[in-house]
Every structure is written in structure tokens, then in C-alpha cells.
């Protein structure tokens, strides 16, 4: 019995050894074995669903029965790009415009903060700042947006404070409110890559710059900014794409005329199951992000991630 068991054990070990030896002799087998699962998952889940999205955008829905009609047509795209009724173009422009504004705002806010954290703060202060930057991410996104509603309300915290100096701001449920809330919720995603890229600048570059007679501003413009730019661009990928794809913030803090691409997609999926039109409109942010990522790669953002 025990001999049999030992033999069986050794034969299992032998098989394992043979397998590992064959992997060693043929490294490409090992590579295939390692990469097949993620590649298949990527192809099916990611590329597959994107292709289905793209293909279905050329179909239509029968308005009476709500059934899909598999007839190739450009009518969805014609409606989106129609100039006689520019509703959808206006919504796309609004979405892109606010996403860009949020990205610029976050970059401006994150740069000094990241600089302070990376180059000036002592380790303890730095840890504290890290916690504070990340703290909002511990609570639900929805809770933070509702909190902003209370702040921006007509009789909210903001107007209560401003009331002390005799001012009153009526920005609740406007595009301004969306800009503020988006800038707030996505700020951590900008701070972290900017911090990382600033931290990587060697001290002796700055000393050399000073030794060669460059003043602070010149050092910032010629040394720090170019070296930190990939980090800013990497952060902007997050802030831009997250804003571009959002529909909850417009729903909750936006007012009349605050619809985003995501809201129209959401409404069309719910209504008569007009998935083809939703798919057609959803390809626009995909295209924009593809172009954005190409540009970001040229600016070296992927080395800073």
C-alpha cells in the first residue's frame, strides 16, 4: 500500500517535472499558456462587446413592436449629425466641453498640491495629505454628489456662508454646478499621477539649473514642467474619460439643458429598447477617447502611469 502510494506520488512529481522541463525547453509554449486566458478574455469581453456595439449602431428598432430590425442603415448617425436639428451635436459638444474644462481645472488644482507633496512636505505631512486626497474615495460617489446638492442649494451651505457678506449665488442645477462637482469628484485621479511624476524628478537637475543661473520661474518652465507633463497627461486621461462617460452627475446636479451623451444613451436603452440609437451615440465618446489616447501616447503619458 505505502509503496504504491509512494510510487503514485513520485509519478505525479515526475509528470510535473517533465511538464516544467518541456516549458523550459520551449519557452513559447509557456508564453502561450500564460497569455491565452487574458487574451481570450480581452478579445471576447472587450473587443467583442465593442464590435457588437458598433455593428448594432447600424440597425434600427420597429417603433410599434419594439423589436430589432437587422437592416443596415445610416439613419442613426444621420440623426446624430443632422444640422437641421443639432440637439445631439449640442449634447456631444456640451459633454466634451465640460470634460475638457474639468480636466484643465483639475490639472491646475493638482499641480501645486502634487508639487508640495512630492518636494516640500515632510514624510508625515505627506502621508496625511495622501490620506486626505484619497479619503473621499472611501465614501460612495453618490453620497458625495448628494452632499454637493446640499452645498449648492438656494438655501444651502454655500449661500449661507456668502449670505454673511451679503452675496447670493444661484448656481444650483446649472452647468456651473456640474463643473464644480465633476472637478471635485475626479481630483484624486489627477493628483496621484502628477505627484508620481514630480517625485521622479532628480534633485540634482534642479540644483544644476540653479547653478547655471536659472531663476525659479525658469527652472519651473524648462525643467519641472516638461518632466511632469506626462503625469498631467496621464491624469487627464482619467478626468477626461470619467467625465465623458458620466450620466449620474448631470441627472442629479444638472438643470434644464444639462444632458450628457450618457443621459441620452441611458434614456434610449430604457425607451422602446432603442439600443441601436444608443449604440450609435455611444460610439462618439469611444472615438474621442481613441484620438485622445493616441495624442496622450505621443506626450509620453503611458510611461507616467
Amino acid at each position, binding site marked *: 500500500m505505502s509503496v504504491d502510494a509512494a510510487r503514485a506520488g513520485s509519478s505525479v512529481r515526475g509528470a510535473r517535472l517533465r511538464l516544467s522541463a518541456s516549458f523550459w525547453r520551449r519557452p513559447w509554449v509557456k508564453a502561450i499558456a500564460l497569455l491565452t486566458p487574458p487574451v481570450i478574455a480581452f478579445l471576447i469581453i472587450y473587443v467583442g462587446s465593442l464590435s457588437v456595439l458598433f455593428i448594432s449602431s447600424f440597425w434600427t428598432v420597429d*417603433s*410599434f*413592436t*419594439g423589436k430589432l430590425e437587422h437592416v443596415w442603415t445610416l439613419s442613426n448617425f444621420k440623426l446624430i449629425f443632422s444640422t437641421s*436639428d443639432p*440637439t445631439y451635436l*449640442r*449634447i456631444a459638444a456640451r459633454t466634451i466641453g465640460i470634460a475638457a474644462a474639468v480636466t484643465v481645472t483639475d490639472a491646475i488644482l493638482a499641480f501645486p498640491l502634487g508639487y508640495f507633496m512630492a518636494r516640500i512636505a515632510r514624510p508625515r505631512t505627506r502621508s496625511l495629505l495622501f490620506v486626505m486626497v484619497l479619503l473621499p474615495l472611501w465614501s460612495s460617489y453618490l453620497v458625495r454628489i448628494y452632499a454637493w*446638492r446640499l452645498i449648492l*442649494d*438656494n*438655501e*444651502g451651505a454655500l449661500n449661507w456662508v456668502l449670505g454673511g457678506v451679503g452675496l447670493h449665488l*444661484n448656481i*444650483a*442645477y446649472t452647468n456651473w454646478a456640474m463643473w464644480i462637482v465633476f472637478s471635485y469628484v475626479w481630483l484624486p485621479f489627477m493628483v496621484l499621477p502628477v505627484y508620481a511624476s514630480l517625485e521622479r524628478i532628480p534633485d540634482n537637475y534642479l540644483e544644476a539649473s540653479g547653478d547655471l543661473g536659472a531663476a525659479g520661474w525658469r527652472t519651473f518652465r524648462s525643467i519641472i514642467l516638461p518632466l511632469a507633463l506626462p503625469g498631467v497627461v496621464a491624469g487627464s486621461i482619467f478626468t477626461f474619460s470619467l467625465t465623458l462617460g458620466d450620466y449620474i452627475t448631470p*441627472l442629479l446636479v*444638472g*438643470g*434644464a*439643458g444639462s*444632458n450628457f451623451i450618457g443621459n*441620452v444613451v441611458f*434614456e434610449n*436603452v*430604457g*425607451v*422602446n*429598447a*432603442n439600443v441601436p440609437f444608443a449604440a450609435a451615440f455611444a460610439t462618439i465618446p469611444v472615438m474621442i477617447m481613441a484620438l485622445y489616447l493616441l495624442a496622450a501616447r505621443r506626450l509620453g503619458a503611458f510611461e507616467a502611469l
Partner: protein
Amino acid sequence: MRRIRKRHVLVAALAMALCVPAAGAGSGNGLPTKIGKGEGSLNLIEWPAYSDPSFANKFVKETGCKIHRKDAGTSNDMVALMRTGGGGGGGQYDLVSASGDASLRLIYGGDVQPVNVNLIPSWKDFISIFKSPAHNTVNGVHYGVSVQWGPNTLLYNTKKVKPAPTSWAAIYNKKYKGKITVPDNPIQIADAALYLEKSKPSLGITDPYELNKTQFNAAVSLLKQQRPLIKKYWTTEPDEINLFKSGDVVIGATWPYQTLQLQAAHAPVKELIPKEGATGWADTWMLAKKAPHPNCAYMWMKYVTTPQVEAKQALVFGETPVNPKACPYMNKIQADSCAKYHLNQPLSYYKQIHFWKTPVPQCGNGKNNCMDYNAWQQAWTQIKG
């Protein structure tokens, strides 16, 4: 009823007749004649709290039908849910509490089946207009039983809006720019049409849900002019309550529920049905075509329309029963609530309310030139911009 073309009804009825599952033995017209033994389960697509445990638990105990709920946020959600899994409730859902802007879509889409109202004893007590309303009864065939309803009223802040409004014109008035709210729902086009029916008789609008191209465009352009005046299109009841509480808006279209909540919180608001009349919503428990538990479904329709349960549900949700016998029970739970929710009104009160129904191409007079719900939906996206 004459507005719906016979061909569609015939097709629908035929399809239904073929698919009625075994809820008692089918008689000549395919409808069950008695409610059989419960199947032990009941799956509902409902407005949140439409099977609130406060009144549903008793039903579960009495019938042994365990309730599984799927809450829907909008009428479109409801239609989409009913159409999953090949339509007709996908063999998963039994009943849906559809509002009038969804019910005809479900009937024409073949997602619901006829119901024998004789098995619902309270049905004969309903306020007459809710027995066979156009939004759930087609050519005398019932696709469910009415359950509750409410008017869409004009709500205003009594301190900020003076003099008190008497007409819907107030929500199109530049005087209240940035202080107006209306529901985020394509059916809002009907509210504009109702206002135009009285203020612009030359358009010849007779039914706010049956609009030809010219009438439709007039309503849409009125709403486009209204957009810059709107603070927010509200999506949920708490949304609107907050807007009025914070003073962000002072006037808007509402449901009685929000008004009562605001008044209970001592907000200075009042509501009214303006001189043009009002639109209203009425909900129907509709039987899914592929309902897996039809007996439990019938028992539920029977149970929720009884006066005691009608009264309880009305006060949980803030709406009005279709069964006037619920009146004394409402008052017992909450003094004067029957009058508050207008259940004690004469028939003339209900006549000024135009209940939601899904816009379809078939107009009155046998014409087929009306704008359908898809067009309404698209226009609504454009209005909101």
C-alpha cells in the same frame, strides 16, 4: 375605444387566446372562469411600495403566494422589463403595475393578456371611469384592473407667487424664469397640448394624447420656449420636494403626494387644478402574457382592490383609490384623508382630468396621422437639449 383599429385587436386577442395558461378551465373566450389554487409564488414589476409589506404581508399569509418584487423607476423601465426574455414578462413576471403611458404599449406589444374582471369582486364598485378606461381596455377586452390614480396639479409657493395662479399659463410665464420645475417625462407634451387646446383653439386639439404633426409641433415649440425658464426637470418625488423646500423653484407641475409632504413640513405651498383642467395618471395591474403564476396574480388583483387595502395603499404611496368604498377606511387611518385625496368628488371632477394613455398613430375619426410615442420621446430629448 372606437379609436383603436379592429385589426390590431383581433391579432392581439387571437395571440392572447392561444397563450392563456391554466388559470381555471378556459371557457369559450379563453378567459378563466374561476380562480384556481395558488401556485405559492407571485412575481411583480411594480412602482416602489406598490406591494408594501404593511398591506402585502396579510395577502401572503392568507394565500400562501410569496411575493417577489422588481421595482421599476420609470414607465420605460417597466416596458423594458416586461419585454426581456422574449416579451410577455419572459415567463418570469406575473403582474406589472403599468401607468397609462405604458399600458397601451404593453397591450399592442402583446406583452399582456386579457383579464376576466368578473373574478375581481370590487371591480363593480370602481368609480365608473376606471372600470373600462381607454388606457387598459381595448374594444371591451380588459387587460388588467385599475388600482390607483392621481392628478397632475399646479403647485406654487404662496409667498412668492402672487396673485395665485388660475391657469397653466403660469409655468410658461417669463416672470418665473429659473424658478419653474416640471416632470422629466415625454408625456409632459400632453400638458402643453392641454394648455394649447384652450389658449389656441385654432389648432383644433381635442385630445392631448392624439396630436397631428401641426398640433404636436406647436406643443413642442411651446416647451422649447419654456426650457430656459426651467430650473430642473424633476425625476423623483424627493427631487421636487427639495426644490420647493430650498426655494430653488416657486412653481411647477406636481403630484398630490409632493404637495402633502411639503404642507406637512409647513412649506408655504398650495396646489390646484387650473381652469384648463389637468392631465392625470392611473395605474393598472396588468397580467403578463406568459405569467407563470396566474392564480396568485388573480388573487392579488382581487386583494388590492378591496376597500381596506385600497385605503392603505393610497396613504402609503400618496395617491387616490379607484374604489370609493375605501373612503371611510382612509379617514380611519388619517382624518380627512379621503377629501384630501379627492376621493369624495363628484364625477364632474374626474371629467376635467385627462388620463395618461400611450400616444399611438391611430387618431380619432379613423385617421392614422397622429404622432406616436417614439416621436414624443425624440421630441422630449430635443426639448431638454
